[in-house]
């Protein structure tokens, strides 16, 4: 009974926190603050996962989102200098359109959820060690196995990594094929001591 009450209070508290942080993500004008709010929202989501007895998933959520994606977003904000420029205030029209569409979606989806019957399992207790189960499921084949999607995801990640490198790297010098190391065109003008050494050591006074 008490445990159930605590669970309930925790759920509503974390849910309220998540919603507030999510609102901050979309409404803050300073993008870096939005990123921090996003970090908060994703961490509270991890808390919600833990409440859903998906502990492993909660850990993964924090590891990937907070340690990786949010940091990447912060770097991107800094690289594209979005943090320095305040984002233009969206016009009232934009806000209205956005609000109408999103509230429309909310109403329809909540209505659908309330209106549909769900086959809720009675014995709702999750297995003790979800990490083991997830590992087995990911590398299993046949019914309940996800080995093929898993491999596809690995390929996707590899492709994403390569794509990221190719897209974001520096432009090659003009007139050269797109296979060189991607030197800056202007880099030849930069005085680099290492390159200087080769041609001038011969003339050293001694």
């Amino acid at each position, binding site marked *: 009974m008490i445990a159930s009450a605590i669970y309930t209070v925790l759920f509503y508290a974390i849910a309220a926190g998540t919603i507030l942080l999510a609102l901050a993500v979309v409404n803050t004008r300073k993008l870096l603050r939005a990123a*921090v709010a996003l970090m908060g929202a994703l961490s509270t989501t991890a808390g919600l996962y833990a409440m859903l007895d998906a*502990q492993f998933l909660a*850990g993964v959520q924090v590891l990937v989102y*907070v*340690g990786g994606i949010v940091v990447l977003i912060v770097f991107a904000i800094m690289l594209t200098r979005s*943090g320095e420029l305040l984002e233009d205030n969206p016009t009232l029209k934009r806000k209205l359109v956005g609000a109408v569409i999103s509230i429309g979606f909310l109403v329809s989806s909540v209505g659908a959820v309330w209106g549909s019957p769900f086959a809720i399992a009675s014995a709702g207790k999750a297995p003790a060690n979800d*990490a083991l189960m997830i*590992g087995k499921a990911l590398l299993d084949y046949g019914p309940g196995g996800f080995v093929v999607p898993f491999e596809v995801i690995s390929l996707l990640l590899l492709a994403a990594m390569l794509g990221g490198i190719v897209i974001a790297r520096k432009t090659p010098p003009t007139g050269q094929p797109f296979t060189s190391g991607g030197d800056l065109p202007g880099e030849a003008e930069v005085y680099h001591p290492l390159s200087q050494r080769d041609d001038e050591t011969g003339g050293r006074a001694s």
Partner: protein
Amino acid sequence: MTATSLTYFAIAAAQGAFKNVTVSERTAQAFADGSWILAIVYIVVALGGLAALVTLSGLVLIYVERKLAAHFQCRLGPMRVGWHGIFQTVADAVKLLLKEDVIPEKADKAMHLLAPFLSMMATVMVLGVLPYSPILQITDINIGVLFVTAVSGFGVMGILLGGWSSNNKWSMVGAMRAGAQIISYEISATLALLVVVLFSGSLSLAEIVQSQDAGWWIWRANGVGFVSFIIFVIAVTAEINRTPFDIPEGESELAAGFHTEYSGLRFSFFFLAEFINMFVVSGMTATLFLGGWMPFHIGAWAGFNGFMDLIPPVLWFTGKTSVVIFLIMWFRWTFPRLRVDQLMYLEWKVLLPIGFVNLFAAAVVVLYNLYPFPILVP
């Protein structure tokens, strides 16, 4: 990368037989029994213990570092406040608390205030899952190792935000260096830690300690463990920004790096977080590779083993942690600091390939049961 490591986590996380009685379990039991007062006492004890641990380990480590540095450098260190200066750190802490908390005019105030707390939070959260002894652990979660790796992300964000919000170029450079460095070295640390997870077959820290009953992983894992121990120590030294990897705050280059603009209480938070971080990573190293609270046992020498069992587990844990802390401090007072590109070279071209090969070797050893050296315990 992500998918692969997740799978390794998942495969390795098998259920152990032994279950520690942690503070959180006792609390839950007390709630179930309906004894409110006992449960609240447990919670208060846990929180108070955590607070005491944070404060004490911070104070002690700062004092130890100063004394150790002094003796490395042929001097005495603090000698005036209390016997051999033991209250010097307390005096310094009081001084820091009484100092004015300066926030730069053009700083992003909210972020500036938030950053030290994020940094501190990342550290304190890990303290809650470290097994200090079989009965002294605040909570043992199934995914302990994953949790420890995950929450260090908050530390990165704390440093990044602190550097960015100060609106100072030195801070910004320091923060960018810190971000790049911690994220890079986290990969190596995780690879090294996965070796232990592979051998012990669990992500729970208590079970990892329990799995080292027959010998600590640093030598029982046939060389693989030793290699990952070295990788892990190097990587965590980089993760907590200590020399030779202290480039985010390198005082001769960036004044003080990301915390240049911090003063008073907030500075002390960053400062304290650094030292508690050292305790945390040393505790993790001890837990993963040196057997945690597990006493030192040799094969079938019942007498020797019995004698070793007389030493309480907490002392074993503290002793092993101290050894690693000493090692990290020794690094600091001996090595010069690396340059930022050399740092990246070390991680991506040296540690990471070795880490991958090592992990593969560990998988082979575990899979085919290759134990060329006899295990000490029958």
